[in-house]
């Protein structure tokens, strides 16, 4: 079980209000990702749920019971920290055993769970090493192992992959998703990286300055962002925003069009501009187009073989049914 409900939760540090009243329900077994720019209060929100910070007002319920004033240890939640927070003077085995030792689990059971976790996380050969003798990815797995053996009702992850290199990050992303499929336990995952959010989440919660901007599945957010902020945050490369006369033609203050929804041509199209930097990824190329009169830069995704060079003229045509319209408040409308 792991159903977590936040009811008008607020948090202030002194005079600074970090989380304005916030309501959120996380269902049992869901993989929820909190995503938002740095400093928007993601970690604070996670720490409130964990019980490492006291709420200023409001209520947190776990499985229907009021947990607002429960100490962290009593909430049956396990957390994986950004710094991993492994105990440096204990071996991997002792690190993983620590929560069970504190809970008074008997030795035989401890051994069984450690071995199961080590096997699942490929740590069997490293059980007698210290955290300092492990690579970043292995440390990450130890931290996850320490969380698993507690058999918590929900896992909390605070930017667990941000200290890993790119290749390892992709791997661990898969491993964590895999783990979620196996355990079917609620997971709350905090990240500033929208790619992680899109690839892992059942449900994404987009935060800005402590506010929830939108809650929904990855594709819902991609297809129907509620406002300009979500539209710009979800999707990579970023959506292009165009203001002025072109937007007015659509009856909007601003229109947004994703790089993958613009076709580029060497000969004709609706708009024209000059090719600036071209980023070649092999399969795709991202063209940064200048001097189009629409916006300073328009990013366009084209085929990897596209052969225009710096300074060439390029013609762009948007897919009309994929154009997003925003009003003066930045809200999207149909």
């Amino acid at each position, binding site marked *: 079980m792991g159903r977590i409900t936040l009811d008008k939760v607020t948090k202030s540090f002194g005079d600074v209000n970090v989380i304005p009243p916030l309501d959120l329900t996380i269902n049992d077994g869901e993989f929820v990702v909190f995503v938002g720019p740095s400093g928007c209060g993601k970690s604070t929100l996670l720490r409130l749920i964990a019980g*490492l910070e006291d709420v200023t007002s409001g209520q947190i319920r776990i499985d229907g019971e009021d947990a607002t004033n429960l100490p962290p240890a009593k909430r049956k939640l396990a957390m994986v*920290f950004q710094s991993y*927070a492994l*105990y440096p003077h204990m071996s991997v085995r002792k690190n993983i055993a620590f929560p069970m030792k*504190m809970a008074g689990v008997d030795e035989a059971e401890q051994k069984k769970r450690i071995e199961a976790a080590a096997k699942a996380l490929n740590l069997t050969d490293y059980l007698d090493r210290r955290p300092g003798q492990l690579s970043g990815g292995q440390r990450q797995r130890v931290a996850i192992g320490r969380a698993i053996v507690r058999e918590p009702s929900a896992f909390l992850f605070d930017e667990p992959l941000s200290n890993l290199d790119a290749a390892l990050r992709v791997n661990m992303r898969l491993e964590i998703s895999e783990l979620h499929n196996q355990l079917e336990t609620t997971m709350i995952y905090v990240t500033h990286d929208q790619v992680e959010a899109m690839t892992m989440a059942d449900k994404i919660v987009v935060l800005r300055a402590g506010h929830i901007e939108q809650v929904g599945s990855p594709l819902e957010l991609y297809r129907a962002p509620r406002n300009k902020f979500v539209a710009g945050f979800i999707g990579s490369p970023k959506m292009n925003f165009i203001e002025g006369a072109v937007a007015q033609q659509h009856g909007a203050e601003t229109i947004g069009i994703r790089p993958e929804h613009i076709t580029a041509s060497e000969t004709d199209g609706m708009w024209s501009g000059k090719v600036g930097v071209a980023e070649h990824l092999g399969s795709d190329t991202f063209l940064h187009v200048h001097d189009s009169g629409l916006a300073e830069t328009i990013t366009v995704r084209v085929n990897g073989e596209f052969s225009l060079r710096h300074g060439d003229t390029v013609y762009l045509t948007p897919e009309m049914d994929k154009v997003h319209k925003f009003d003066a408040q930045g809200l999207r409308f149909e």
Partner: protein
Amino acid sequence: MATQHSRSAARLMMAPAVILLLGWMLVPLTMTLYFSFKKYLPMRGGDLGWVGFENYIRFVTSSSFWPSVVTTLTIVGGVLLITVVLGIFLAILLNQPMWGQGIVRILVIAPFFVMPTVSALVWKNMFMDPNYGLLSYLWEFFGAQPVEWLSKASMTSIITIVSWQWLPFATLILLTAIQSLDSEQLEAAEMDGASAPKRFAYITLPHLGRAITVVILIQTIFLLSIFAEIFVTTGGAFGTKTLSYLIFQRVLESQNVGLGSAGGVYAIILANIVAIFLMRIVGKNLDA
């Protein structure tokens, strides 16, 4: 330091310091060894020639030798125990966010800046004097007979005075160590269900291991040779004669340089024995 050139340049630049240090150490050591094999009485005939190991034998067989070793070790052990335990306690307290933290920290450090002679005098006259010391007033206030600290509880008094001097050092080192403890580790332990005492035992204390080792090793070096505190308070009487005090008496009071030098060599040996033991016990904490 990669190339041949930069390595030899480095050696050249380190040479003055190394030579100075070597000279600083070797000259007194050689002279001590030299005099320890001589009968040398400055006021009573000067250099009276070589005597072999006579000084060494006389020094150990004197009735003051073993008690002085015991006294030395008792003072070192007692002060270490008090400063480490209280130092950890104070460091934890000072690490809590509180009003006036800066001033409190400076006040805690202050005793370290008081010269040993001065602090011993202050303790002797202002606190421990049986007639007008503050402690005697305190005892009288509760209707008790004032204690003659320096004669009746001489070792306790000296250990107290020296601990008071060294507590700031221990606190300072331990405080910086506590500040470097990653708070996420404590939070992780809290989520893992560890109570505050268990978090201290399993997380904070092991983290402090290295700092405690440093405190113990450095303090031992200085405590083995404490002198001023004893000279000013008891003058070596009432069972407070340490090895270094005994050497002082032999050289200056009995004017027997040869005998004192032999004692100096014993002091070096004692210091090394203590060092070996300490490194056995706590040295592994220094490995990264």
